[in-house]
């Protein structure tokens, strides 16, 4: 409590000294059971590079430090979503449970996608006009000491307690049409984005399976040819070529799946998590609204002697709610902007990468075709 209070104080201080776009999460290495991420960034002032190693717990610490419960306006902020923890099994293989929980982030070689998601998270925090001022970010990015050891309480991120309330309050009628609309819109979009992301994941998984099947076919053919003696040389050559063709097909699916994961997959995943974050923010506001309305009622019903105290409480709540609402309004606007921008980036780079892959593979195919036509028949 004390510590978070301190961060809240320092929040108003000078902004981040690190360039947001320079933040990179380069790689994840497995240190015993924990994944260690190496993060590099550059100072705004002199472009000097900084490199630190952080664990997932450090990220959690940051996420909690960003949110200061005693700063009511912060309730209106849409916090950049931190990906769920990636648990590596000993064989560093992705099991179904992790896949279900993390979706795209569980895919990719050496946690590549997960690193990118963390990177996006840090960048989003650094780009945020309010959150970037929080010293915790700078600490995480520059301090050689690991800050995450001091465990913080769950705070509002403890979603377990929310679940019960959520059901009750989610349908609470809003006093403000803007927020009512936003809430309706958000729950609709959240569901749709989630489904779309899952389906895109299915596409990618199917591509990966195809890639494996093609590889299998390619090596089966090769194995077969190796067994055959050279009696039918022409046939062996054709089989070898066929094996190569399937290798290219395998490469095609592999690349396509990779592109899908690293661009649109990641984009959709972020989109989906961001919408969840917005939902959480809107929910916090709704909670405050319910609280305020209850206070209003209490004030009306209260007897004269208690009315003064009740009004005071109500006024505090009202002030908090108003501050939160105006912050939320800003944040929603900002969110939509950055959401569209993020999706645009994802779509454009997705398209470009797929185009590159398609062109590359087409060139390989035509090479194969040419080579095949030249093969002898006898």
């Amino acid at each position, binding site marked *: 409590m004390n510590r978070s209070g301190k961060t809240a104080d320092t929040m108003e201080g000078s902004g981040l000294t690190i360039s947001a776009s320079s933040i990179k999460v380069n790689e994840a290495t497995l240190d015993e059971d924990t994944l260690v991420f190496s993060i590099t960034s550059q100072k705004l002032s002199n472009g000097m590079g900084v490199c630190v190693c952080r664990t997932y717990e450090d990220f959690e610490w940051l996420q909690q430090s960003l949110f200061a419960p005693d700063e009511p306006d912060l309730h209106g902020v849409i916090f950049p979503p931190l990906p769920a923890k990636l648990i590596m099994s000993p064989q560093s293989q992705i099991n179904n449970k992790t896949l279900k929980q993390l979706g795209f982030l569980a895919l990719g070689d050496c946690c590549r996608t997960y690193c990118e998601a963390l990177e996006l998270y840090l960048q989003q925090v650094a780009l945020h006009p309010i959150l970037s001022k929080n010293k915790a970010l700078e600490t995480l990015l520059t301090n050689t000491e690991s800050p995450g050891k001091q465990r913080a309480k769950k705070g509002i991120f403890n979603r377990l307690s929310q679940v019960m309330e959520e059901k009750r309050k989610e349908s609470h009628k809003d006093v403000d049409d803007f927020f009512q609309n936003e809430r309706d819109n958000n729950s609709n979009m959240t569901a749709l984005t989630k489904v779309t992301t899952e389906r895109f994941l299915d596409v990618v998984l199917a591509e990966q399976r195809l890639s494996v*099947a*093609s590889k299998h076919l390619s090596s089966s053919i090769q194995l077969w040819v190796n067994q055959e003696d050279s009696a039918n040389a022409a*046939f062996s050559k054709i089989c070898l*070529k066929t094996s190569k*063709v399937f290798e290219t*097909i395998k490469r095609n699916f592999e690349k396509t799946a990779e592109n899908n994961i690293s661009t649109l997959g990641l984009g959709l995943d972020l989109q989906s998590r961001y919408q969840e974050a917005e939902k959480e923010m809107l929910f916090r506001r709704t909670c405050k609204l319910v609280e305020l309305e209850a206070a209003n009622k209490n004030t009306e019903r209260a007897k004269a002697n208690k009315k003064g105290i009740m009004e005071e409480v109500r006024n505090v709540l009202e002030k908090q709610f108003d501050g939160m609402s105006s912050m939320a309004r800003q944040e929603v606007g900002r969110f939509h902007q950055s959401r569209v921008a993020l999706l*645009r980036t994802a779509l454009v780079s997705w*398209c470009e990468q797929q185009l590159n892959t398609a062109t590359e593979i087409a060139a390989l195919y035509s090479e194969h075709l040419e080579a095949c036509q030249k093969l002898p028949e006898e």
Partner: protein
Amino acid sequence: MAASSERSPPPFPDAEDQESEPALRDEDSDEGADIFLGTVSRKPFSPPAAPHSAVFGDPLSNISKQESTSNPAKQSSKLPSDVPCDIFDPLHGTGMEPKDDGKNPAELRSEERPKDEPLSVASSKPKKDLFEDSPEDLFSELPKTKAKTKPQMDLFGDSSPDLFMDAKAAADTGPGRNAPADLFSEESVATTTSKSAKSNISANGVHSDEEEQDIFAEATVELSLDSPHNNRKTLDTTKPSEPASSLSAAAGSSKAQAKTLEELEEEESEDKFELNISITNPEKVGDGMNAYMAYKVSTQTTLPMFRSKTFTVRRRFSDFLGLYEKLSEKHSQNGYIVPPPPEKSLLGMTKVKVGKDDPSSGEFVERRRASLERYLQRVVCHPSLLQDPDVREFLEREELPRAVNTQALSGAGFLKMINKATDAVSKMTIKMNESDVWFEEKLQEVESEDQQLRKLHAVVDSLVSHRKELSVNTAVFAKSVAMLGSSEDNTALSRALSQLAELEDKIEQLHQEQAGNDFFVFTELLADYIRLLGAVRGSFDQRMKSWQRWQDAQTTLQKKREAEAKLLWANKPDKLQQAKDEIAEWEGKVTQYEREFERVSATVRKEVIRFEKEKARDFKKQIIKYLESLLQSQQQLIKYWEAFLPEAKAIA
């Protein structure tokens, strides 16, 4: 009826029984032959007993009676099986007749039952050669005539005129020449009682003459029966019924000689084939469970053996199976690799019959169509099979008699058949002391290849199913994106998303096409070759059988020699002559079987080499086709992405 006689097993046992007698034939000529013929003809044809007993009584008049009374179809179907019996009977009854009166019956016989005539015609006929070669070749071993007479494509036109002229000259009957064809087709045979024999000659002569068109139209059943009938006779010729006759042995050797000539020629002409076959317009005929699919078989050719350059017939699936049965019956035993047709699929066909617009039944029909097309193309690609009259008939003739008894080839039955054949092979391999390393190695190769192909087939299958899965997932994703786009507030993003949904729909289409390509090119190709390898094993099997026959003959010969030694020792001169005859007979058989085995071995070797060449060519063709389809869909994909990129960039 005809079918039943066709299906009755070749009279091996009968022939075996007679094997003690035939030795007489050489010396005693006609009588022995008659006895032999009598037994042979009675036994195999005994099933349709009723008509026969009548016929036996008064052959010639019976023929005429039958012909005049029965309706056309029935009559024509009866003729082939009845006539031979009728014809032998006179000989049987009149005994010595052939010598003076002999011209007609003898000729007749030789025309009707080509393989018997070496026995009966034997010494009395000056036209021995002609009869020995032409009729036989004409009916079942067409290519041989080609080699023997003139290296020409149209052997009908070539050999039959001679034959016909001879027949005419010998018979020396004016009406016999012009009447027969008409007689036969117009059912006025009754009038020519005494000449019925001649009319038969002519009928058969005509069958190979220019007038075949008419015959084809009128006497449909007769013709179709004719070929299996004769063909089985050939089978007999090469098998036990030919026995010790030195004549037939000579025929055998001339045959072998002819074969090599033919082979040479084949190889030369291999590249000159101009024949394109396509199967189109699958069409459901009839309703309910009696419905069937009819396919349009179109042929384009520059080969002179066909009457026109392009022609089209309609065939149903069982016709294709029927063709395979005929071809396999005729050619398998000689070691040829007869391309197998696709299996019958009860499930698939039932779907077609029941379901109206089920996409899976459409896929089934297309798959079947393509597979029948490949089957037929493989048949006509085979230089020897192309020469088969049944192939020609299949491609050219308007109406084919309904193929029966194709159930044996349906699905499981077909597999069982192949498995049985391979079992037999493996069993025999143990017994067979393989003298030729080439065959040993090849057989092993074929077997391991079969296993590999089956494995590959399974892998490709899973590839296809994954591709289908991807296609389905892409479609679902496209739908999701479309919904997301329609709920999106940002206009540009909404527009881009709906474009993306369209893009994904198109990509899904590509995946679907590619899945089809994977399937049609690789799955089907591999399935074809698994079947073809079955046929290859079959040809090895035939060689093995031939070897077995030779070995058995050697064993028997050995026994006979031992028996002779015993007789000598026991000093029983009365039986000694018979024993000597038997030894001579079996010596002949051994030589003949050995020659046969060598012939089959040579054919198998040649066929396997041809098969491998074809395989390499086929795989190359398919992989090129596949790559072309891959490339095309990839280029399409590039276009799609290029079109989408500005949309993505337009998001503000």
